[in-house]
């Protein structure tokens, strides 16, 4: 039998139901995997094995009493941006040292209601700002497929943990690709739901109009399962919309015949990694083979997306992160007066990338620049949104790469943030348009690194992209590939 920590959640549910394993077995396997490999991966910032085992025992007890819940006894790792009552929530930043959250994020409440065991806090780029996890204030997370390579970010800890079999499922957050890109780099499935589909309450905000919580998991069925648990209307998040949920798992028919998949030509650019281009092309062909109808579409404003994203996201971040001032919680460096204290606290405890973005965001909102940057960016955002609306007039979903390249070596992108930002070009438009996207493994590069396929759907049509991704996934074997280190983690 394969070790439990390497299985998808829906298979574990089956085993649990058949009495072939217990929650304690699952949690024990996951904990021993963490103990064996996490010093080399760095996916976890913190986990409480003892507490998780206690919760697992309680779950087994409940199950024996006839309780049936979608995630009963399933351990779930959480990106360090989510508030859990009584736990730290550090956003991988030193400025939140000492902060203990007094409340559960909405998605955490939903996980608990579904019976999940909260396992630990997963590493990330500080305040979700980055694409490599190099911006964690504590430690970098390494790509399980090759530890000289980055896992992607900012939900790098979530993706690496699932990939290295140190977690069976995790939640991440996606502001400009932070779920899909690391999922692609690490060979897992990552879903960014439509803006408003999942409540943001308790998700520490990076960019409020773009952030969305989503699952990082082993396969598409697990993505559907977790989305069913965390999605829904929250009347205390006014950006969460009251739109009926689908039973996402029921839509996974494996049948995509007649589905119209749009291929945006702007997503196949010069300078793309040839491996990525070829692999994604193969995946598109596979979909055609499965009966999908391919159509060429245009998203003409794609070239502005990265600039627009870095204006809007940093503007919102500059205000969202203003609260980290040393007054009420977290780190504080005393000063002569409040202003001095803010300066010293923020200078000393925020990382360079975070400071860079706060400065950029402050700049674009300043009087004299606001119209030129922020207002223009908002107008361009509307154009980008319209691009997608037009495209969805002729197709059901879009099929494209997640990133122009596979993972890269630590430090490879050097000190040029602009180069780094351009890597987000295929993911940020989805956030700007507020629609949904999923990353699903579709191949390996020549150097043995995973490549992801992105399927993008209209707002609140998660069932559509899940169905397409699932059909593709089931017709291939990429999602079953495991990195070498997963064997060390206890995979037989």
């Amino acid at each position, binding site marked *: 039998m394969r070790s439990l920590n390497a299985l998808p959640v829906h298979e574990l549910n089956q085993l649990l139901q058949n009495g072939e394993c217990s929650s304690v077995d699952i949690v024990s396997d996951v904990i021993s995997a963490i103990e064996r490999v996490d010093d080399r991966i760095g996916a976890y910032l913190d986990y409480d094995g003892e507490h998780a085992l206690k919760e697992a025992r309680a779950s087994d007890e409940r199950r024996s009493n006839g309780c049936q819940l979608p995630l009963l006894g399933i351990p779930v790792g959480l990106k360090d*941006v*989510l*508030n859990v009552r009584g736990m730290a*929530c550090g*956003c991988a930043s030193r400025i*939140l040292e000492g*902060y203990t*959250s*007094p*409340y559960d*994020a909405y998605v955490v409440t939903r996980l608990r209601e579904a019976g999940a065991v909260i396992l630990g806090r997963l590493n990330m780029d500080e305040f979700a700002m980055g694409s490599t996890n190099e911006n964690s204030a504590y430690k970098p997370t390494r790509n399980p497929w090759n530890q000289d390579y980055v896992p992607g970010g900012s939900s790098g800890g979530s993706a690496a943990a699932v990939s290295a079999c140190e977690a069976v499922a995790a939640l991440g957050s996606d502001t400009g690709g932070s779920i899909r890109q690391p999922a692609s780099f690490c060979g897992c499935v990552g879903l960014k739901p439509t803006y408003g589909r999942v409540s*943001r*309450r*308790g*998700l*520490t*905000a990076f*960019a*409020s*109009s773009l952030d969305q919580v989503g699952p990082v998991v082993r396969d598409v069925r697990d993505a559907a399962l977790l989305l069913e648990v965390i999605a829904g209307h929250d*009347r*205390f*998040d*006014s*950006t969460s919309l009251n739109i009926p949920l689908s039973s996402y798992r029921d839509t996974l028919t494996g049948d995509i015949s007649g589905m119209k998949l749009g291929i945006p030509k702007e997503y196949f650019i010069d300078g793309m990694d040839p491996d990525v281009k070829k692999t994604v092309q193969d995946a598109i062909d596979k979909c055609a083979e499965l009966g999908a109808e391919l159509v060429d579409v245009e998203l003409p404003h794609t070239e502005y997306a990265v600039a627009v994203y870095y204006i809007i996201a940093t*503007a*919102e971040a*500059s*205000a969202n992160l*203003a*609260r980290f*001032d040393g*007054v*009420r*919680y977290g780190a504080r460096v005393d000063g002569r007066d*409040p*202003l001095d204290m*803010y300066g010293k606290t923020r200078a000393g405890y925020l990382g360079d990338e975070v400071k860079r973005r706060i400065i950029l965001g*402050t700049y674009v*909102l*300043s*009087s004299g620049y*606001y119209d030129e940057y*922020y207002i223009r960016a908002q107008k361009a955002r509307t154009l980008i949104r319209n691009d997608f609306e037009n495209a969805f007039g002729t197709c059901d979903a879009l099929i494209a790469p997640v990133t122009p390249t596979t993972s890269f070596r630590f430090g490879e992108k050097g000190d040029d943030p602009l180069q780094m930002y351009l890597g987000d070009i295929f993911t940020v438009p989805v956030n700007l348009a507020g629609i949904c996207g999923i990353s699903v493994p579709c191949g390996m590069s020549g150097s043995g690194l995973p490549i992801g396929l992105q399927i993008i759907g209209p707002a609140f049509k998660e069932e559509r992209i899940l169905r397409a991704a699932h059909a593709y996934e089931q017709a291939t074997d990429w999602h079953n590939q495991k990195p070498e280190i997963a064997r060390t983690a206890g995979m037989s």
Partner: protein
Amino acid sequence: MKYKVSIGLETHVQLKTRSKIWCGCPNRFGQPANTDICPVCLGYPGALPSLNREAVRLTVVTGLMLGSTINRRSKFDRKSYFYPDMPKNYQISQYDEPFCTGGHLNINVNGGSKRVEITRIHLEEDVGKSIHFEQSSGVDFNRAGTPLMEIVSEPELESPDEAFAYLTALKQVLLYGDISEGNLEEGNIRCDINCSLRPMDSDVLGSKIEIKNMNTFRGVHRSLVYEIKRQIGILDNGGVIQQETRRWDDDSGLTSIMRTKEHAHDYRYFPEPDLMPIVLTSEEIDAMRSAIPELPADRRNRFAVEYGLPEYDAGILTSDRDLADFYEAAAKISGNYKAVSNWIMTDMLHYLSEEGIGIDKIKITPEALAELVDLVVQNTINMPAAKKIFRILLESGGKPTAIMEDKGLAQISDSDSIDVFVEEALSSHPSSVADYRSGKKAALQFLVGQVMRLSKGKANPRAAMESLKRRLDSGDPGN
């Protein structure tokens, strides 16, 4: 030189809602520091605002009372600046799409009336309160997140008296609409002043001086008197007024500079992404409109016409909504509008100011006052007895007739009973009788007093006087 003064007021009003604007914490005053708080009003990571619709309603109702245009679509914006009492270091406010635009307020000043234009009314959140100790400072966040409505006037007020009258009239409207507790001591109403001077013959507004955080109307008046004098002094000496923000020190009676134009904040407003724009339907606005009470000025006019009261009395009676409600209820039951007004204007208001309490604290009901008026009209009691009963009603409530019977205060009007006292008075004071008959008519008053004394105040004074006169003039008994 003579100058024209232009004063505008930005009045911040704490709204009377049960909970705060973004969270479920109670909106109240006087709790121990940092007890009415939660992750939302403390600006904790991940906390989101959730709009209190009652705060929106109160803002719109205020706009309707002031004749504003209610905007069908409004939105919130973030106003960024760092201050320890600001949990998020941005305040959620409204920048360019407030709930209400335009409107006006009629004020009474120096016997005349003036219409002051309102620029806009918007909704925002209040901040916490910094507390300074000997060696350190602290912040009490109980107040953070209290719904705060800002009413901005056009710079049309031309004197400290007008500014004072504006605030007084505004407070009256707010109390009438049940918008705010209106308690200045608790900081329910605070304002920022802007004031500029220009030569009489100039059309261009002078440089604006702002005075921040005023929390008494008297302070507004005093600071303006000072500030206008200060600016005239500078201008008369050929100086130039620089745009700046000043603070008022109530103890010294001076304003001093807080920051100059160069150091003005750049608030970096941008639309609040955590809150969706608010769209009000005409049905919603109509429902709010139907709930607005009659305004003080309208009610004053109506009282004068409908109840035939002098302007002055109508003004006093409508100065407070509860008082006006009390009057109107009693007047309607009694039908004797003037008598009811007299009781309230004299005895009741005197009692209230003596005790330093509001009308909500007294025990008398409008029904009881009407009944009391009736007892007097019917000659069942005389005035001194009525005043005694009124006092008891104020302090402990009850029914006038019951009190009258209980205390034996019914007036004696039947002539047989009166005559007994009259005869006794005449026979006991022969010299007064002689005085009266020799032309000293004042003696009659003395004799009436004696009748009252003998009857323990219960005799009907008019009946007593008539009986006395009849006997004295006819030269009948006692002589």
